[in-house]
């Protein structure tokens, strides 16, 4: 079996599956259960200065799919609501009991040097393997000048990172907020401040739904609501892009990335790793199913690696980064055409109506003698957009087949149709 062990920003772990700083890593009881279940590491739920934060009730709400499958969760829980002393004591004991697991401590204190100077030695004394700076929490804490309020200002990110590197010898991971316009700016700031790694994404500002009877958004606290942090599988595409942006940015190239955002399966994890992550963090999937999910994640990832001939994670980490580029470098002459496997087709007509109403009228509906319909692609009209394949309920029924058009590679930079094209 493939070797899943990692050394991420100098931190060793038996596998790349870490639990993110969140309710599942709030206290020793949970963390021990997680380690027993096989997690490679945890990021202890964010510590702050005493007095500890106070939380409200209720705290979560969900965005559901058609069959109540949870697409995403929104939460308005703050950082730990337990005292610093209790947390530090528990961290010390857990690290002692589980020396082979990565134990990172998430931190959030006011944006003043004294605060960081005070807390960092206390954390280092626990024996923890590293710290993660919570610059991402989008609810509650920013109102107090912390969390995303720091993460959204590159100068603060750089400054606090530097303080941490100054007053602490542990690896420093900077957790980035996605609630900004360009993730690279914050990553560059962390890099300048001396960060050993970045982790992303933190949660996204959100309201999941509105109770139309009570006319209040969810989650509710009494008759009120506030925006919370969105996570879960729905945010994965956003997170993947942000990781890739940092991975391929010349200014941050080589900066270790810990991928976070909607990871619930080994495949999700492998995708983050392929786009440059050296480790991944999981939260929502564990909150929905318990810590046991790590078992299938580890098993699936190592079997897939075996099937691909990857002996360890570094052999494929970042392998998809080089193929991620700017639009202007894409081959404008490349074309695919949809092909429907008539044998696999169940005749639902979704491809036809999707293409007919909203795309290129490239799928004909042919009436059979028995009143049912057959669907055929009109090759000349198909632009290869993938929509039919996306709406088809049967996997592999519609294949996007590359068209051998004999045209050479041509990107927009060199396309004569581009008024600003590069003349060779």
């Amino acid at each position, binding site marked *: 079996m493939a070797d899943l062990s990692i050394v991420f920003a100098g931190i060793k772990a038996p596998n790349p599956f870490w639990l993110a700083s969140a309710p599942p890593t709030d206290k020793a009881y949970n963390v021990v259960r997680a380690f027993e279940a096989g997690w490679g590491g945890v990021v202890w739920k964010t510590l702050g200065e005493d007095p500890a934060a106070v939380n409200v009730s209720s705290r979560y709400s969900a965005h559901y799919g058609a069959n109540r499958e949870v697409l995403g969760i929104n939460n308005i829980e703050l950082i730990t609501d337990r005292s610093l002393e209790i947390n530090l004591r528990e961290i010390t004991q857990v690290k002692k009991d589980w020396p082979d697991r990565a134990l990172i401590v998430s931190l959030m204190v006011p944006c003043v040097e004294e605060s960081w100077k005070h807390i960092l030695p206390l954390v280092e004394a626990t024996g923890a393997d590293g710290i993660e700076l919570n610059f991402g929490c989008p609810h509650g804490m920013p109102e107090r000048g912390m969390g995303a309020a720091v993460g959204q200002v590159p100068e603060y990110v750089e400054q606090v990172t530097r303080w941490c590197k100054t007053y602490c010898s542990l690896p420093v991971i900077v957790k980035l907020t996605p609630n900004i316009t360009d993730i690279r700016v914050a990553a560059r700031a962390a890099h300048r401040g001396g960060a050993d790694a970045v982790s992303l994404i933190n949660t996204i500002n959100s309201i999941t739904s509105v109770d139309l009877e009570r006319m209040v958004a969810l989650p509710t606290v009494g008759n009120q609501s506030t925006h919370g942090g969105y996570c879960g599988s729905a945010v994965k595409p956003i997170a993947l892009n942000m990781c890739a942006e940092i991975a391929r940015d010349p200014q941050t190239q080589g900066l270790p990335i810990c991928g976070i955002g909607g990871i619930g399966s080994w495949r999700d994890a492998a995708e983050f790793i392929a786009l440059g992550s050296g480790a991944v963090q999981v939260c929502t999937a564990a909150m929905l199913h318990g810590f046991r999910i790590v078992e299938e994640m580890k098993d699936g990832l190592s079997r897939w690696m075996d099937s691909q001939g990857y002996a360890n994670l570094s052999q494929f980490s970042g392998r998809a980064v080089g193929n991620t580029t700017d639009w202007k470098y894409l081959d404008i002459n490349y074309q695919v055409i949809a092909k429907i496997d008539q044998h696999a087709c169940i005749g*639902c007509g979704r491809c036809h109506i999707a293409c007919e109403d909203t795309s290129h009228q490239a799928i004909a509906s042919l009436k059979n003698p028995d009143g049912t*319909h057959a669907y055929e692609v009109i090759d000349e009209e198909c632009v290869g957009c993938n929509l039919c394949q996306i709406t088809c309920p049967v996997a592999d029924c519609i294949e996007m087949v590359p068209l051998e058009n004999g045209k050479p590679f041509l990107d927009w930079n060199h396309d004569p149709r581009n008024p600003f094209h590069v003349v060779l």
Partner: protein
Amino acid sequence: MIKTLNHLPHPRDNAAVLAGHFTDLAPPLNARQAELEASRCLYCYDAPCVNACPSEIDIPSFIRNIQQENVQGAAQKILSANILGGSCARVCPTEILCQQACVRNNAHECAPVLIGQLQRYAVDHAQFSEHPFQRAAATGKRIAVVGAGPAGLSCAHRSAMHGHEVVIFEAREKAGGLNEYGIAKYKLVDDYAQQELDFLLGIGGIEIRHGQKLGDNLSLSELHQQFDAVFLGLGLAASKQLGLADEDAPGLLAATDYIRELRQADDLTQLPLADRCIVLGAGNTAIDMAVQMARLGARDVNLVYRRGLDEMGATHHEQDIAKANQVRLLTWAQPEQVLLDANGQVRGMRFARTHMLDGRLQPTGETFELAADGIFKAIGQAFDSGALADPLARELKRQGDRIAVDEHLRTSIPGVYAGGDCTSLDQDLTVQAVQHGKRAAEAINAQLMLNVEAA
């Protein structure tokens, strides 16, 4: 009660136990189940299920409404195409209609969406505060509908909606037709036919006159004179005969007669029970009869058919119901002689074994006897020609013994329309009858309004 079965004993079980045997065969979905099932629908375009529905219900749309917690919208969508959508949801052989056509019935998928059950869920839970369809401005036109079965009721409702006044002439005490008198009790429970009737009449403009029988105290000539249009939804009132001696002996009865008694009985314990019984036939009525007799407590129920299982009119689903109720399906045997005891009461039947020879059903020469206390004929219904006895009615063009109609449900006599089982069109199904009634109402309306414009 049924005189010809008076000599038989009564069920052994008490009323509560028997009632338990006649509750919903397929229990309704609860909200959670409906949500789960609705989410399985792929919302097909040009959906095969709609294509397979005789009453053209927009199935993907109503299921999407259920999924979006708009149960009333779902029900309205169903009822706008099929005003008897509630009973059709219960009695339709969905396994050969919408659910057979469902793309999820494909071998690569798992199982069809339970369309019938979802339809029932929507109609049962719609809770309309007022009738969901409004009548158009009164036209002053009057329409006579003969027969308050599914075809007649459907025609009446759609006609009332168009602003016409409708009078329904019904021979029996209750309206509803086969829904009231002919469907297995466990398929349509809790007096549903009458509940649905009340709902349907909620539109207004429909009067039902009971005890009015065409060919008896009613004539087509009169109706044709007195009304602007006539719709005949007569059904098939006569049961086919075996053509054997002693066919009227005590212990031998048409299955439809027994089912009617069963459905109307206030006390199931007082019904006659044929402990050993034979049901002759191969359609859904034969299955209904056999299964109900088994559920009343009969120990030995044989359903005998002269051909093979594949030729049975009853669907595989129905056959499975029979088997699940310990009904024995005997094929390739045709009735040869009614066997009587010393009192002249049925004691059994002799059958001739049959086989196919040169493409024809032939006796093999071998016979066997089955002991039975009761024999029930479910070999099909026939048109009761006595209904068409008056001079005008006799002019109606017939196809076989049934009334010939064109695709607009027009008979050969202008102004007279017909639909449902009494016509030669389509399959004999409740849902088909509803569609006939609806389409006839549209044709009548188009014709009457054309005349108004011309005038």
